[in-house]
């Protein structure tokens, strides 16, 4: 159904290979679960469209309850960061450096890191 913009343009089944799969960063830290896909050149009956980004965040609610999340609130992971699609999706970046990790960062900085021992290994 979909391909990527990299050399080979691998054909992927959105439902089987991408949707609801776990995304890990280069150190195997979980980043997100793919909630939805952003496509380019999607025309009914046309050639396979390209995936431009993996989306997470409020799109999950839209998939469960129906409706559409406003595009401004989508949290996107650009497809060019994707390094491998297998049982999990690996990206070639640190989770830390991504915009969509802001909730995790906020909880860490405002709550968890302030409790004594929060920054130490168990």
């Amino acid at each position, binding site marked *: 159904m979909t391909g990527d913009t990299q050399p080979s343009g691998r054909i992927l089944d959105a439902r089987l290979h991408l949707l609801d799969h*776990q995304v890990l960063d280069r150190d195997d830290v979980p980043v997100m679960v793919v909630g939805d896909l952003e496509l380019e050149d999607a025309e009914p009956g046309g050639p396979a469209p390209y995936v431009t980004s993996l989306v997470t965040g409020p799109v*999950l609610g839209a998939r469960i309850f129906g409706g559409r999340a406003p595009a401004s609130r989508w949290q996107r992971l650009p497809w060019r960061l994707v390094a491998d699609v297998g049982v999990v999706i690996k990206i070639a970046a640190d989770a830390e450096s991504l915009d969509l990790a802001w*909730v995790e960062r906020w909880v860490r900085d405002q709550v968890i890191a302030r409790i004594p021992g*929060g920054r130490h290994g168990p």
Partner: protein
Amino acid sequence: MNRLLGVALGILTAIGGFLDAGDLVTNAVVGSRFGLSLAWVVGLGIVGICVFAHMSGKVAAVSGRATFEVIRERLGPRAAGLNLVASLAVTVLTLIAEVGGIALALQLASSVDHRLWVPVAALAVWLVLWRVKFKVMENVTGLLGLTLIGFAVAVFLLGPDWGELAAGLAPSVPANESTTTYWYYAVALFGAAMTPYEVFFFSSGGVEEKWTVRDLATSRLNVLIGFPLGGFLSVAIAACAAIVLLPRGIAVDSMAQLVLPVAQAGGMLLVAVVIVGIAAATFGAALETALSTGYTLAQYLGWSWGKFRRPAHAARFHLSMIVALVVAVAVLATNVDPVAVTEYSVVFSAVALPLTYLPILVVANDPEYMGEHTNGRALNAVGSVYLVVLTVVALAAVPLMIVTRAGS
């Protein structure tokens, strides 16, 4: 010793399923009302949890993926979300009961009112979640929980008529109980044996311990020792009650009555041993359910999780466990009976059972995940039969609970 410690994960997981605060009391209730005529359900439950825990452990070891990640991937966000809500309800209700159960065990030992022990118990659970290594946690609670073997010792010390006890194993409804009540307890025991948080905890524990294909034997050993041991101890508790309480017509309704047969059999010393076991089992089950809350949420939503990471590197995972413990303390502050709380978890368990075990069976058959370790035919046959049983139990649980007014 290393071999023994190697199966600590299985023992701790089984404690949460068969010997948590609610089950300790339910086993004694069942023994005092039905004798051993429901022991076959525990046997059925042991085989079922062994089959599916084996598959989830295998998936974790071979693909490094914990069960709830697989559930969302295979069922999609809607069905997995329904499972998440139902499982979280079971898990948090059980956590409430466990924190209350630790407090009750401490009351048995200290005579200080259990309501005063609740915040202390919750704080102790949190400190272990926050600071203690997974390995140390499972070894200590697993080994101390083994002192529940005191119940089996008590059965021998009571010196029952073994022929009569064995005859009582045959499934039959006692004259003074109704058939629906019998089946309600059968469903409750089966649901407790196969509670979903066991496979969530077991598979996530495998990931925490960084299992690989080479650890498949460890996984199998954990399953084959842990769950049958847990089931055996739960039958021993029922047997104690059946020998001492059933002939005298004493109905169990609190944790203190649980140790009456033990006191009669082995005096204060054996009671002390068993109380250590009860405290360790409820504490272990509290850890298991609190962690399962974090695991399921984090795996469904794709957060960073795991006790092997620093809390700051799994911030939302730790925050959700803190919230769960705060909820537990708040609910217990309303003076609710901690043991009664678990009775209602049967309802949520019913919804979650098929939705949990179907995806495990599907992924254990997916060669992309499992390679050469894909399920064999025999395992699939047993797994499929159990899925049918689980669906029947899921459909029957709620009507039975309403008809029997939760077994009363």
